[in-house]
């Protein structure tokens, strides 16, 4: 099997399976061999599920032989962030105190993917407890620091570190990740893959580690907007087992997308200029011109004015302190790898109820404000992160060299979008940074709730005009 297979889109792999160019077993074994060999190189692999994957692949081959087709993901290998339970298998949440933890049920998303014939090959590494306590170093994981396939001396991003690195290195065609505030978009941008954070409530969290009941979302890291659309179609849907479920399904329908020429997209010039890493400015500005060339009307705007960081902090603190109270009070929290995260979780126990409730009340206003905002605009385009990944040895709270901007543009869109429950898509848009050739950077599209098809349509159009999503790191 050639290297092309490991970087092929889902549509291509599915077509080749149906044409019997290779069997699902052959494809699965090839991916298993690759992730077993290369996963540890990036600290991306939490658990290999070799036997289960081969058994599943045999079942899929029997179905394909009978020409029983189940859809685009049938026979496609994938990996899942290690906060999603797979029945009978260790699910360690990236954290030493939970190593060896086993659940007796599959997460709903894993069950749904199994039902359509996708093959779970691996659990993927993550920042411990998804970083809820606030971590200081990329090494905040039982798997070690997530290493970026474009440069192993740089971070893969977090907290869905292994999911993004595995897709970037061609170890899986797609992976499941999760986001409370930035944990899909950030690693997607840093690793040069496409990341989709769905609307809050669209995808069931049943069987997933909870960090913040009112913020957690399960999403996709993939090769393209189109691939993410097909995966979302499979994992979305109502689930009585998730109290946050919105009771909605999703059908990926690029053929019915509104013409881009009818869309009005908000942007802030500062986001592509003074607010970004100087080495990334050229890539971001070129990307903005590509977006403009798609025919959408770009209109200057600013994010609604709220103290987003001060709001999301108490929401995560209050909810995660309650979720992990036993861990914290028992002292097992001290087994975590990142000392800042330990201190953060302990401090959360002293959060005043009034702070949590004030944050949740402001959050109501944030939702209203975005409702009004999206009455004027169809989408927002801004950068996913303001520059490429930092060095893996660098503290994540180290002081930087650039002053904060008076004009904030859409800075704060990650906590804002998460507080408002909005969907977002990150697409690779170039390279930047100090290394020869650079490291990936990403562009982000955000839309009103349940408008995933709109941002996927914009992302697909962007990827038809660019080839950043097809670039491969030297492995």
């Amino acid at each position, binding site marked *: 099997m050639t290297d092309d297979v490991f970087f092929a889109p889902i549509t291509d792999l599915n077509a080749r399976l149906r044409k019997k160019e290779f069997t699902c077993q052959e494809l699965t074994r090839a991916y298993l061999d690759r992730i077993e060999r290369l996963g540890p190189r990036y600290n991306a692999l939490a658990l290999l599920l070799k036997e289960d994957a081969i058994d599943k692949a045999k079942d899929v081959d029997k179905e394909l032989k009978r020409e029983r087709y189940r859809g685009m993901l049938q026979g496609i290998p994938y990996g899942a962030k290690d*906060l999603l339970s797979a029945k009978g298998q260790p699910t360690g949440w990236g954290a030493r105190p939970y190593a060896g933890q086993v659940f007796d049920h599959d997460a709903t998303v894993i069950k749904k993917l199994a039902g359509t014939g996708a093959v779970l090959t691996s659990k993927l590494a993550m*920042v411990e407890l*998804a*970083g*809820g306590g*606030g971590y*200081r170093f*990329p090494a905040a994981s039982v798997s070690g620091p997530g290493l970026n396939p474009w440069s192993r001396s740089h971070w893969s991003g*977090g*907290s869905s570190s292994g999911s993004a690195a595995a897709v970037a290195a061609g170890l899986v065609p797609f992976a499941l990740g999760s*986001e*409370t*505030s930035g*944990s899909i*978009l*950030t690693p997607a941008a840093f690793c040069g893959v496409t990341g989709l954070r769905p609307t*809050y*409530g669209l995808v069931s969290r049943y069987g997933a580690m909870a960090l*913040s009941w*009112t*913020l*957690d979302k399960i999403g996709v890291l993939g090769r393209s907007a189109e691939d993410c659309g097909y995966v979302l179609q499979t994992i979305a849907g109502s689930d009585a087992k998730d109290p*946050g479920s*919105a009771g909605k399904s999703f059908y990926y329908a690029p053929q019915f997308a509104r013409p881009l020429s009818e869309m009005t997209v908000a942007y802030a010039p500062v986001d592509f200029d003074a607010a970004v890493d100087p080495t990334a400015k050229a890539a971001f500005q070129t990307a903005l011109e590509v977006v403009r060339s798609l025919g959408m009307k770009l209109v200057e705007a600013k994010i609604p004015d709220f103290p987003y960081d*001060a709001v999301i*902090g*108490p929401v*995560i603190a209050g909810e995660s302190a309650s979720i992990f109270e036993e861990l914290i009070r028992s002292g097992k929290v001290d087994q975590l790898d990142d000392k*800042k995260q*330990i*201190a*953060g979780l*302990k*401090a959360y126990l*002293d*959060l*005043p109820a009034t*702070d949590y*409730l*004030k944050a949740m*009340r*402001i*959050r*109501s206003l944030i*939702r209203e404000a975005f409702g009004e905002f999206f009455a004027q605009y169809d989408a927002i385009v801004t950068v996913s*992160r*303001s*520059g490429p990944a*930092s060095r893996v040895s*660098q*503290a*994540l*709270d*180290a*002081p*930087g060299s*650039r*002053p*904060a901007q008076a004009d904030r543009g859409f800075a704060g869109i990650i906590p804002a979008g998460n507080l408002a*429950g909005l969907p977002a898509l990150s697409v690779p848009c170039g390279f930047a940074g100090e290394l020869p050739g650079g490291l990936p950077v990403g562009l982000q599209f955000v839309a009103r709730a349940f408008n995933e098809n709109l941002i996927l349509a914009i992302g697909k159009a962007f990827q038809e005009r660019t080839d950043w999503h097809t670039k491969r790191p030297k492995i």
Partner: protein
Amino acid sequence: MLAAPVPLLAQAPAVEDLAALAKSQMQANSDRLKQFKIEISVEPAFAFKP
């Protein structure tokens, strides 16, 4: 689920006492929330639906 901040904007001094830092960050958030005035009728975003 939670992405760490990227060290590009100046924001944090060297950390000597992580517990004190965590508490001071919570206090800073609390102070900012107190400054944000809202109508008494605004209810929390429970049963969160976007």
